[in-house]
């Protein structure tokens, strides 16, 4: 178990999600802490993405409580889809990348700052009039976008349509876009999938810097155990919708239940 020094940021309690007869997530509880990377692992179809979808308001859980601690606390299961991002400040990426492919890289990052800019533009009125107040806010937003582009190495591609970027760059851009919403909790669904080893290790550095520099709590779904071992602080293991183990990464590696769960799919994961 973790040392439990810091108070949790996200608490998942007794989360259950059913689709008709299928129980995709079954009574799962765990917590994620600020400035920590909590990895969620498990074989294909274990229910990891479904947990994310519940946390980020895309699915209404059948049972369970999802609390984002803060001032005030947010009960995520009661919020509408977009409110989770807008008010509770939970951001996410998707297992299959969902950028705005026809818009440029820079525009993608500006759309992420929509709510902030919307306020600055006085619900568009100041913006239409071209007031200074809005122009300053937009300049600040572009500046923030530029900083993120520097961190993910895409400054030169800022004006290209996002859909034209190579796959690895799209993955990084999606993370930067999520970070541009100023989240408190960042949920990443298999960000390393499809990356080559070099890109993968760059991604590790980025995630560690997000944890350490930006002080964001990270939930990370990941199949690549080497990544999990290297950067995560805490690991939750799901199998067939149930939580079968939880603890420090090293402890998980030798946990008999985890080994059993993975044996059946060992070949799949070897090259994932």
């Amino acid at each position: 178990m973790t040392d439990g020094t810091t108070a949790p940021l996200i608490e998942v309690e007794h989360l259950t999600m059913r689709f008709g007869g299928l129980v995709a997530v079954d009574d799962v509880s765990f917590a994620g802490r600020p400035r920590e990377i909590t990895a969620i692992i498990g074989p294909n179809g274990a229910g990891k993405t479904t947990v994310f979808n519940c946390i980020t308001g895309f699915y209404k859980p059948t049972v369970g409580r999802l609390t984002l601690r803060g001032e005030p606390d947010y009960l995520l299961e009661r919020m509408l889809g977009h409110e989770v991002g807008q008010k509770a400040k939970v951001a996410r990426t998707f297992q299959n990348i969902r950028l705005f492919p026809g818009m440029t890289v820079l525009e993608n990052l500006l759309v992420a700052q929509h709510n902030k800019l919307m306020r600055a533009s006085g619900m568009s009125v100041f913006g239409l009039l071209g007031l200074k107040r809005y122009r300053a806010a937009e300049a600040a937003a572009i500046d923030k976008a530029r900083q993120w582009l520097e961190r993910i190495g895409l400054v030169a591609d800022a004006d290209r349509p996002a859909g034209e970027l190579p796959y690895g760059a799209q993955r990084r851009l999606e993370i930067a876009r999520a970070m541009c919403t100023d989240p408190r909790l960042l949920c990443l669904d298999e960000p390393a999938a499809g990356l080559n080893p070099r890109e993968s290790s760059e991604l590790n550095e980025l995630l560690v810097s997000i944890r350490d520099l930006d002080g964001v709590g990270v939930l990370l779904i990941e199949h690549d155990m080497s990544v999990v071992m290297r950067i995560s602080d805490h690991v939750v293991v799901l199998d067939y919708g149930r939580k079968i183990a939880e603890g420090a990464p090293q402890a998980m590696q030798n946990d008999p239940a985890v080994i059993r769960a993975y044996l059946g799919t060992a070949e799949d994961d070897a090259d994932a």
Partner: protein
Amino acid sequence: MRDRLPALVKDAALTALVAAALGLFIVGFKTRDAGQGLFFDYQLVDLAVAVATIFFGRLGLQLASLGLKWPSFALGAALGVIGAAPLELPSTFLHWFVVIAGVLIILRTIWPWANAALATARHSQRGRAFGQRGAKWFGAILLAAAVLMPFTSFADQKTMDLAVLILTYVMLGWGLNIVVGLAGLLDLGYVAFYAVGAYSYALLSTQYGLNFWMVLPLAGMFAAAFGLVLGFPVLRLRGDYLAIVTMGFGEIIRLVLLNWVDLSNGPAGIGGIPGPTLFGAVFAETAPAGKQTFAEMVGIPFTSNQRLIYLYYIILLLALVTNFFTQRVRRLPVGRAWEALREDETACKALGINPTNTKLTAFAVGAMFAGFAGSFFAAKQRFISPESFTFIESAIILSIVVLGGMGSQIGVVLAAVLLIGLPEWFRDLGAYRMIVFGLAMVLIMVFRPRGLIAHREPSVRLHPARAGP
């Protein structure tokens, strides 16, 4: 070539067979209502000529797509000559049909070559710079031409009428472009908001004596309010539901206008709508009591063209306002959110953007511009009836947007000139106009889904100096 020929002929024969099956009843027998019951005339010759044309047309297109330039070129030329020859075909339409088939084959034959030439031109350094600056210059020249047009020698009655009509559609196209092109919401009942604007002005001016400039903003607000009321429940639904609900809504408005006689005077319509005034001056030969005509005010002799020129400048102004608004709003967060919603609604939600509200603004803003255009329409026609607001009208506006390139402002102008101007100019084409619209919509979606003008200029650049991708 030799060994491929049987397969090609078979393919063309199959296509012709399908065409024959499609046309057998609808084209082959023409029903005629001769007073006491229905009769039909045989049009099997028409059908046979059409099917034969389709056979050779398909063959030619296939040859061309295989790169067999000379055979396909010869076939295309042959069809063109046959179509143009003074043969005894049952209708002129068939002549055209054959000619068009020939032209299509020839176009398809030279297409790869033309395409390659265009691509090299576009990608060359100079071509790119030209494209960038050219677009700006093109817009500016177009604008200057539009402003000066009434003072040129082209500006006779007929041309001015047509210009006003085209500009009305340009404005409607730009308004709908906000909804369809930017926000990606398929609104098939756009004409309903146009009707709301038109009836607002017709009623407020004839009943309460309000003048055009007072009603204009009100009409826009009414239309926007209608947009909000309709949009609120349906915008949270899937996009295709929205399409059909807006289509139904357009029809409801028309039915209500037809049947609510107390309000709208039903099918008889509303007449005697005053035209727009300029600082209180009317555009007519003689002014009503207590008013002044424009000619008197300025001290020039009256001509009937003055009214038309004034209408022209009003619609030009309204259209430019629409365009300016769109250009501006595209650079604002709400405009970017519209485009983002079009691209991926799920991703928008994850970023904390409220999809319903954002769509609602696009929907209402689009409706507002239709409302403006509607009150202009009523002021120009001076008579309106529900007949002007049918689904066909919505379909025409939509095809202008689709053909021009969704989201492209210049594209809409081009498409409006093509789709509205050409058929008006060549009156004979009128009957075929809607067929061409329908066909164009399908072909554009299949071959050029981004429209005639596919280029999308980013709303903001990080590297303005180094323009271009």
